[in-house]
């Protein structure tokens, strides 16, 4: 399924220009929603193609330590769902960068899923990646996403059998996200060997772009992944970088420049 969203348009442009995409994950509201608005702009300036924006959740069971702590910081600072939507609406005044929600089901479900996704679309969100919504459960939710013209980005993992990959990609739009390893989000030294094979296999089963993520944290790893993926997702490493730099505009500029090095490595592939 192909919806006309900022995500699908971005991949169309990337394909036309022969470039690979760079997707940056950050947690909304870490350390504040005001900072998130600024970080998105800085990331766009250094060439990030798509923002994957985490909705902070109290019980993020698919996330490693770095993203768990980011969510805790965001919630402690008072990030709410409507606050996140307001921040996105503010971003949209000056930016057309695609924004993909990365979320657990409950924060959307608790407020009424239909209402949540429609408000998200209105604020300027382009799609959702729902971590704990496998195909066995996803049908009614995917329908709501489609009706709101939001992409449904789905995950395939090293434990997903071939037949199941085929079933998963049929429910996807925007792009398909290959998880490079069996595990939670977080940094690691090397990308697992099976990742390339998983990605190549997935590509055979779908016309959608295929991105690779989980555990990528250096320009070298990013470039290697971009060698075979249409886009590379970097998450925890970016969250960690912004967290450890001074919480000032200068600090955020420096962190973004660091991300820019990874973007550059991907763009040179």
């Amino acid at each position: 399924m192909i919806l006309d969203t900022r995500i699908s348009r971005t991949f169309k442009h990337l394909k036309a220009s022969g470039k690979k995409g760079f997707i940056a994950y950050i947690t909304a509201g870490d350390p504040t929603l005001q900072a998130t608005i600024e970080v998105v702009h800085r990331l766009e300036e250094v060439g990030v193609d798509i923002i994957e924006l985490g909705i902070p959740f109290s019980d993020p069971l698919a996330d490693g330590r770095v993203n768990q702590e980011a969510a805790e910081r965001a919630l402690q600072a008072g990030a709410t769902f409507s606050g996140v939507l307001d921040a996105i609406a503010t971003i949209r005044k000056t930016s057309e960068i695609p924004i993909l929600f990365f979320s657990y089901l409950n924060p959307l479900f608790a407020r009424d899923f239909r209402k949540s996704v429609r408000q998200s679309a209105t604020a300027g969100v382009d799609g959702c990646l729902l971590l704990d919504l496998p195909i066995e459960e996803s049908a009614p939710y995917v329908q709501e996403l489609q009706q709101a013209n939001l992409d449904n980005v789905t995950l395939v993992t090293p434990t997903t059998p071939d037949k199941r990959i085929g079933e998963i990609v049929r429910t996807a739009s925007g792009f398909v996200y290959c998880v490079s390893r069996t595990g939670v989000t977080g940094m690691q030294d090397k990308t697992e060997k099976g990742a390339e094979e998983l990605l190549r296999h997935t590509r055979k089963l779908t016309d959608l772009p295929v991105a690779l993520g989980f555990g990528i944290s250096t320009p070298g790893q990013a470039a290697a992944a971009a060698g075979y993926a249409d886009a590379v997702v970097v998450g925890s490493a970016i969250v960690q970088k912004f967290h450890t730099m001074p919480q000032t505009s200068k600090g955020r500029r420096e962190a973004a420049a660091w991300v820019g090095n990874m973007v550059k490595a991907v763009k040179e592939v």
Partner: protein
Amino acid sequence: MSSKIKIPDAHGHFGPYGGMFVPETLMTPLNELTEEYERAKRDPAFRKELAYYLNEYVGRPTPLYYAARMSEALGTAKIYLKREDLCHTGAHKINNCIGQALLARRMKKNRLIAETGAGQHGVATATVAAMFGMECTVYMGKVDMERQALNVFRMERLGATVAPVTAGQQTLKEAISEAMRDWVTNVRSTHYILGSVLGSHPYPMMVRDFQSVIGREARKQCLKKEGRLPDRLIACVGGGSNAMGLFYAFVDDRDVEMIGVEAGGRGIRGGEHAARFAGGRLGVLQGTKTYVLQDKDGQIQLTHSVSAGLDYAAIGPEHALLRDLKRATYAHVSDKEAVKAVNALCAWEGILPALESAHAVAYVMKQAKTWKKDDIVIINLSGRGDKDVMQIAEWERQQKAGN
């Protein structure tokens, strides 16, 4: 309900509840687990082995004990205690652990992981791991490790690694998340023994089935002793495994009333209790759709109970269905009433119940006056209270100090 055999459906739905809300990495292992469990259930060799360990190792059947002095003191109803506290390791939890460890062995997985709140499920998992010669890691919130130090010591003696969980509220919920993260990472070598009727399919079904021996025995024992079925079953409900274990064999016996007792804590106010049916609403937590204590944004709320084993924000999905169908009802009692029940049962029967099980006892103490003299009531005495003595002493000290 037409027949309990059809519940849940193939993907673990108990009506609108349950299901499989987990990361994709876990879907294939969960589907494999479901298939292996279905095969094992039909395999006479597996059933024989399970029965062997339940009888010879756990010490089943457990007695259905007539609590004569308690019955006399309350002056109404004949009260029986299903003595799960007499199971090896001191609680019903081991019924499920034996079953799941045997399954893990069939799947050639030699490492067991578990979460624990009160520590009873952790001790039971560490115990079966030792007995079957398997590796074992138990995740436990740091706060729970402090209030259940005795069980931490036991698990370590049994050769398990007890991994402290320092995220969030540092109790059962965070321990489950951490165990699931371990499982996501080590899924090829590891089996996760979830300890309650919670989480993704097949756990709510499988744990219920392994615990249903409680109700099958109780039903038979009651028929033998009294020549009829009981009028009422009472069990405490955290996730709800001991309650489902007792209730399940009676689901089709429409005249048998079933009552689950949740933790009322310090009162039904946000963060002060764990009574999901009193303060919760529909949500999705840790793999299952059910009643969850949460704020309007779907953030999971803090919970409180004097008993670590009931201190959890969600309730097993089958309980939510039984409640919708009006087949079971749910009540809650306070910390104070539960502690009072511990002392009362000690005095009446010389039995020290776990703080969790004391919630069921407390409910009976409150409600008995509304029952008829010849009513037969079965309380599931799901665990013994040795682990709680320091906790109770501290609680009583705080009460005296006026907190």
